């Protein structure tokens, strides 16, 4: 457990994690679960879209390269839906090529995280992103 973060940091948070890689999906969900979040998983964009529409989570963390519907298709659909405009959507990808981050932000993602993830890097980056968003920062149990 990260020393300065409380175990119930994300208590009461519905978070949807979308990744076609089972291991990646599990790493992310175990970490988020460890901080008290209600984690909902999906293995592609299409499935993720359905989960998001039924759960209406505060936060979505999605991979970009996926079968059926990839992260680019997902963000397009989500940004068309005005009822979901307050949902924070963070891209999580192993794409580390120059320009990927910029492209993700331009496509409508609120932020961008690069794999590989460790508990430390993932949580540090995630908390910083959430703290920078006033209406979500208030909901963190710090």
């Amino acid at each position, binding site marked *: 457990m990260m020393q300065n973060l409380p175990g119930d940091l994300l208590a009461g948070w519905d978070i949807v994690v979308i990744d076609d890689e089972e*291991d*990646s999906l599990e790493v992310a969900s175990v*970490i988020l679960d460890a901080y008290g979040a209600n984690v909902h998983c999906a293995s592609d964009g299409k499935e993720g879209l359905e989960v998001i529409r039924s759960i209406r989570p505060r936060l979505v963390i999605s991979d970009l390269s996926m079968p059926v519907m990839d992260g680019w298709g997902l963000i397009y659909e989500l940004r068309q839906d005005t009822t979901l405009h307050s949902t924070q959507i963070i891209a999580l990808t*192993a794409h*580390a090529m120059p320009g990927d981050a910029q492209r993700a932000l331009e496509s409508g993602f609120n932020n961008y995280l690069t*794999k590989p*993830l460790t*508990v430390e890097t993932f949580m540090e980056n995630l908390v910083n992103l959430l703290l920078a968003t006033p209406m979500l920062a208030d909901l963190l149990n710090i």
Partner: protein
Amino acid sequence: MIGGVTALLIGIIGLVAFFSLQQFNRSFSVMIDNTVPTDQVLRTLRGDAQDILASADQLALLIVSGTDTDQIDGEYEDFKNAESNLLADVQQLAIIPLAPGEPASELVAPVGAGVQRLISAANAFVDGFATAHLLSLTDAGASSSASPDNSTAGASADSSAETPSVLPQSLRDLQLNFEQVETEFLSELDEFVSVEADESLQFQTDSVAALQNAILAIFGVAAVSLVVSILGAVVGSRQISRPIVALIEVAQKLTRGDYSQRADVSSFGEFGTLSRAFNTMTDTVLSRQQELSQLNATLEKRVRERTREAEAARRVAEENNRLKSEFLATMSHELRTPLNAIEGFTSIIRNHMGGTEYNASTARYVDRIEANSKRLLQLINDFLDISRIESGRLQLAHSPFSPTELGRRWADLAGGLAEKSGLGFEVSLDPSLPESIVGDEEAVSKIAINLLGNAVKFTEKGNVELALKASGDNWQIVVSDTGIGIPPHAREFIFDEFRQVDQTSKRKFGGTGLGLAIVQKMARAMGGTVTVESEVGHGSTFTVTLPIVLEEPITASA
């Protein structure tokens, strides 16, 4: 034909001569005797003779007699320059020096009686006129009178000639005398002209008339010859013009690109030769042209082939480049994905998440997993760097950075590593280094950290040193150690990919064998060099020399 042309020429010459003589008959000739000083005559003519001259169509002949030809020439030049208006009327002019006393009339003896009389009148006029003038001068100078015929005396007195301010009585008399002579001359002239005009038959015996007749005869013959020639030409024109027209047509068709055309060579003589030469020329030009178009076609074909080949090669190169980029992106993604799982689960275990049982053994194994996964990640990153440099996709930044500050950061990092390995660490930063250098901070750091990492790795005891130096237009990153050193034979290949000094050191020290290759490739990409000095068992010194690129001075408008 030649006869016709000759007749034509003679005819033309005859006509010209005829009309010239007609002209001569209407002209006014002035014959000047040598008994009058030339400059006096000329000066007189300049002023008063104009009226006389105006009565004739033109001044045809000016004969000045005298002993000194050069003097006459010089005076004539003066006269000509001063009297351009008068001379505009002078169509024929001759200066003929005569012996003193020689009568001017003898010179024109062949001319008919009318002309003869005219000359006499002219002589009388000039004599009288010049004498009168001379006398007036003498009067003005000495107030003494001179006889009108004392022209010889005047010759010696001409040097004192000045324009008289007052005309004395004697001069007025002479002026009257002159006017009389002048009137006489003019009437003589009128008579001559009217006689010439009305009674031309009267001059049958005159040489001018005879010459006119001769000329007319020649002209007549010439005219007849011309008519004959023209008739001959008209008759012969068909024979001459037809092949010429045909040849012109052939030439025009050839010009328009009808190369089947050839001149008709059936004509005999010169025209046949011309036609044959024309055809030979056409054949030669045509065969040259065919050779050229063949050569041109071959060249065009080759150019098209080469263009196709180049285009194909370019497409292949582009496709290769695209595949390479795609491969790099895919590999980066594919290698990071499993690493993501390894690192992720390792960190989960270390953080006791997901209900992990954690004890001392678990901790040790997790350490090993983490170390290896970092090594694997390093290998992937190195490999991607090499690929980027080699495929020309390495994009170097051009941002300002402080080399001194960068040096301190490297020193912190390397100092920590050295400390862990029980080594001493020293850093020296040249104060003469520029505050700011433009370049790729990240790439430079990659070089320095690689060299520093190696130095710590290959040194068991002693020191690792980092020095940043300014060296002219360059700056240097110098990394020294007191490590195992590099044997001379290995210095040639240590910068090659996947090469280490030997397999033993590879097993002993680990590493990907890509570090120095990246250092060298990156340094070269930045326009720099890497050199190594080493002594086995005593240590190595790597020197990276990079050009100093300074920031553009900020302009006032920026």
